[in-house]
């Protein structure tokens, strides 16, 4: 009795354990998921079946809703190919992608900012498609945005759009403060002009500020955007100058930091700036608590318009306490007498490879899929939803049938800003870029947070950054002026 039940227990336990093992082990002989499917598929005839996987965030409002349609369309165009799209939210997709990359099995295509490519180049996990793209594909793209997808000599995907991250104001408030926004849209402004303007935008009731002149989202990681957008207009369009010396040790950097603090001390920006996030500042814009907000993108005009429509409908669906707003695209002021350089953002479909060397066949198929996503109808839909100008001939064509709701003056302003955008810098080596990212995350962003919270001075922060930069790049590797 004793013996038998003991045996039963052991058998039971081991069966379950074996079941787990067996269940997991049964597929042991198979190829890893993801890229491998393509690797094995490409060797036969030209039309061999292949599957391309793509990890895509909600790029624009209705982007993810169209996945099924995109998959079908692609399959229609290339009957031997299957596009498998995996949805992910913005915040989580980097983490998922990074785990997959580290495990050696990323998707074939992932959507991300072009500056992210540098992170994956040193480990060799992004796939150069330069040799497999057709001349027609290349010819379809505008040269400027396409350049952003290069790193060194390699082409690592196709761009989806190029947009400007600047600032934006509420038209009635700008006019109330006597600001000639039309002129500024075309000819820009200096920091001193801007400082005066946002001072005038402040509305006070006793001691409490009812409306600020300027609010920029700087909570957590968004503080990186704030400094990043401003610094381009202070004579430092990239973290490295032409001679590949680290630029943020220049005197202009100190001037910029001083100016950042001045705007808060003037009372034009809230003193709690360091914990205002993207949602909060947009709420402040819609509820009339600020005249100018940042970062600003062209698509905000649409958000503002939609909320106005809801206010008109008066059905309680508009943002609580919001007022009618009219979004005007504005350039970032220039600092320290330097020229204004717009912060152009190119996001796109970046191509990855797995542990196994991909076959030329599979590479070509991935390029086809990336091109499919970045051009024609798909790109036209995305671009029109984002109020961003098309960057391929084919999508420009497709976009003709889509009615634009963007105002002409904002369209013109964005076009003007794009013409002042910093050129792509594929010449910055990936190792230097990686070091700069580390310096930014470990030193600059945390110090900027304390600067905004009033816990450190511009001079102290400048010294800290300079010291860390010299530690990282050596005294000869940084700009000294």
């Amino acid at each position, binding site marked *: 009795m004793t013996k038998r039940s*003991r045996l039963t227990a052991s058998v039971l336990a081991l069966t379950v354990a074996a079941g787990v093992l067996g269940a997991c082990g049964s597929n042991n002989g198979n190829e890893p998921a993801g890229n491998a499917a393509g690797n094995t598929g490409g060797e036969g005839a030209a039309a061999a079946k292949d599957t391309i996987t793509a990890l895509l965030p909600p790029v624009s409002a209705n982007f993810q809703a169209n996945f099924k349609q995109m998959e079908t369309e692609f399959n229609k165009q290339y009957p031997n190919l299957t596009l498998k799209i995996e949805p992910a939210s913005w915040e989580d997709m980097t983490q998922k992608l990074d785990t997959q990359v580290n495990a050696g099995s990323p998707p074939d295509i992932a959507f991300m900012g072009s500056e992210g490519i540098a992170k994956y180049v040193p480990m060799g996990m992004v796939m150069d498609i330069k040799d497999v793209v057709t001349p027609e594909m290349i010819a379809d793209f505008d040269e400027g945005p396409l350049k952003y997808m290069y790193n060194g000599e390699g082409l690592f995907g196709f761009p989806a759009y190029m947009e400007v991250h600047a600032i934006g104001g509420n038209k009635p408030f700008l006019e109330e403060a006597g600001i000639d926004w039309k002129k500024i849209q075309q000819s820009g402004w200096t920091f001193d002009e801007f400082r005066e303007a946002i001072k005038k935008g402040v509305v006070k009731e006793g001691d409490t500020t009812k409306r600020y002149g300027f609010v920029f989202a700087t909570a957590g990681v968004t503080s990186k955007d704030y400094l990043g957008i401003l610094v381009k207009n202070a004579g430092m369009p990239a973290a490295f100058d032409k001679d590949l010396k680290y630029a943020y040790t220049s005197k202009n950097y100190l001037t910029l930091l001083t100016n950042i603090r001045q705007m808060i001390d003037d009372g034009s920006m809230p003193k709690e700036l360091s914990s205002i996030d993207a949602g909060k500042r947009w709420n402040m814009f819609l509820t009339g608590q600020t005249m100018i907000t940042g970062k600003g993108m062209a698509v905000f005009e649409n958000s503002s318009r939609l909320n106005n429509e809801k206010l008109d409908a008066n059905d309680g669906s*508009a943002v609580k306490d919001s007022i009618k707003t009219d979004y005007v695209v504005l350039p970032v002021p220039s600092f320290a007498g330097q020229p204004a350089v717009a912060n152009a953002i190119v996001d796109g479909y970046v191509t990855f490879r797995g542990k196994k060397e991909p076959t030329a066949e599979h590479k070509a198929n991935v390029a086809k899929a990336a091109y499919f996503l970045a051009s024609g109808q798909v790109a036209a839909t995305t671009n029109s939803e984002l109020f961003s100008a098309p960057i391929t001939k084919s999508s420009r064509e497709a976009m003709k049938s889509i009615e634009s709701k963007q105002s002409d003056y904002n369209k013109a302003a964005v076009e003007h800003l794009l013409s002042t955008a910093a050129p792509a810098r594929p010449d910055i080596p990936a190792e230097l870029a990686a070091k700069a990212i580390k310096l930014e995350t470990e030193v600059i962003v945390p110090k900027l947070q304390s600067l905004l919270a009033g816990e450190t001075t511009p001079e102290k922060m400048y010294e800290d950054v300079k010291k860390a930069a010299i530690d990282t790049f050596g005294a000869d590797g940084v700009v000294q002026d």
Partner: protein
Amino acid sequence: MGLYNNHLGNSLLKSARNAVIIILLLLFALATLFPIYFMIISSFGDPIEAGAVSYSIWPEKFSLESYKFFFNYSEYSYRWLANSLLVATVTMVSNVVFATMAGYAFAKISFRGSKVLFAILLGAMMIPYQVTQVPLYILIVNVFDISNTYRALIAPSLVTVYNIFLAKQFMSSIPKEILESAKVEGCSQFQILTRIVMPLSKTVMAVMAILTFMESWNTFFWPFLVTNTMDMQTIQVGLKNFRFANTTYFAPMMAGATVSALPMFILFFSLQKYFLEGVTVGAVKG
């Protein structure tokens, strides 16, 4: 309960004591509940975009639109709940069974290597998961090739060290004498486990069930990593899908969070009698 003097003799004094206790507990409850309260009242707001956050302490309206919005958002909303339910239930059952067995072995049976094995088990708890997640991902996705399956969602947490540790700590207070006398009467270890230890450990098993279910239900990162399609996602991953680039539908998200908390609450109430009665040795003997 024997801890408190029930025969104070003075019932007035007893009521006064209980009143003070209740007030203290209520105050603490108020502070603890506030975020939840806020989550629930926000869920009754209208399904409008970010910034529509009202910081008023009292609910301003009672609308179920956000709940509708949540369920209409994706055709898989119910599927997410069902997936979570399946994964959490299997994980819960397997943890209760295997952790109880292992906990008993470590607590009450002296066998060669028990101390060393337990220390090794415990040691692994101390490594942060941020680093083990990549090797684990390689194992599940590249080696076993079972990504996007229920097996991938369940296998790594079939039995956790936390639960073994919990079971062991509780069982260490079962008096040795009972087990020894059972043995003298000819019970095998298996019979001791099922007839004596398990009935005595109902409380800890119920606790374990609840905690495991909760942990599995609330876990986000692992299901997010190993699922590739919406129909295999769990509710937590689904909730995150709600977030958009710059706009967030707060009220529907809170509605989703409220809905996702319900199954755990139901489980709590269905198991609570085990916590409440407790199981005393005397009761078993008698």
